[in-house]
């Protein structure tokens, strides 16, 4: 049973073309929702933490938002260096496991 679903799986945009990535989750007892960026051959790089519905965080061309069942990562006027895989991960209580549950990620390519 998938608890975290990210869409689309892959996205190709032109430089400057804004878009949004989706992360939907079915976990209960959410303690926080994390967004990461991962470049090939590297570990995930932390971007944002969102703790409650309605919360928003911004960093350069990225803005993350959170509702009760999903989160969006909005990318405004992206540049080629924004190309990466973007991962979301809720942290939730229960089940005995205390780690993050990652989605499969969205592979984003920004063409110049």
């Amino acid at each position, binding site marked *: 049973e998938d608890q*975290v679903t990210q869409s689309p799986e892959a996205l190709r945009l032109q430089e400057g073309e804004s878009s949004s990535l989706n992360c939907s989750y079915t976990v209960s007892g959410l*303690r*926080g929702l*994390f967004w*990461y960026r991962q470049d090939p*051959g*590297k*570990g*995930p*790089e*932390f971007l944002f*933490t969102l703790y409650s519905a309605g919360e928003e965080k911004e960093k350069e061309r990225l803005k993350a938002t959170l509702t009760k069942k999903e989160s969006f990562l909005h990318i405004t006027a992206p540049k080629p260096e924004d190309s990466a895989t973007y*991962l979301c*991960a809720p*942290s939730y209580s229960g089940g*005995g*496991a*205390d*780690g*993050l*549950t*990652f*989605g*499969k*990620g969205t592979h984003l390519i920004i063409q110049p």
Partner: protein
Amino acid sequence: DAGVTQSPTHLIKTRGQHVTLRCSPISGHKSVSWYQQVLGQGPQFIFQYYEKEERGRGNFPDRFSARQFPNYSSELNVNALLLGDSALYLCASSLEGTAQPQHFGDGTRLSIL
């Protein structure tokens, strides 16, 4: 400040062998977590340790074990290696628990022949 460091960066083993992977957390971080990432998938949680105690365990067989030392560094051990254990093994550290941001190292690429 140094980030999370992992060693070795690459490792090749054969089936049936065992392996030890090492992780040094960011200075001041007391919690270490281990993840397995296979190609095309997100990282999958293996263990979390805090103050040398196991706080959580993912859905992995008993061949996987870990420990955390007094200096908060950690080791992940895998026994009786299988071909399916080939993956990128990631270590992440955080100040305390997983409700706080975890910061990842660049991982150990383990290949099983």
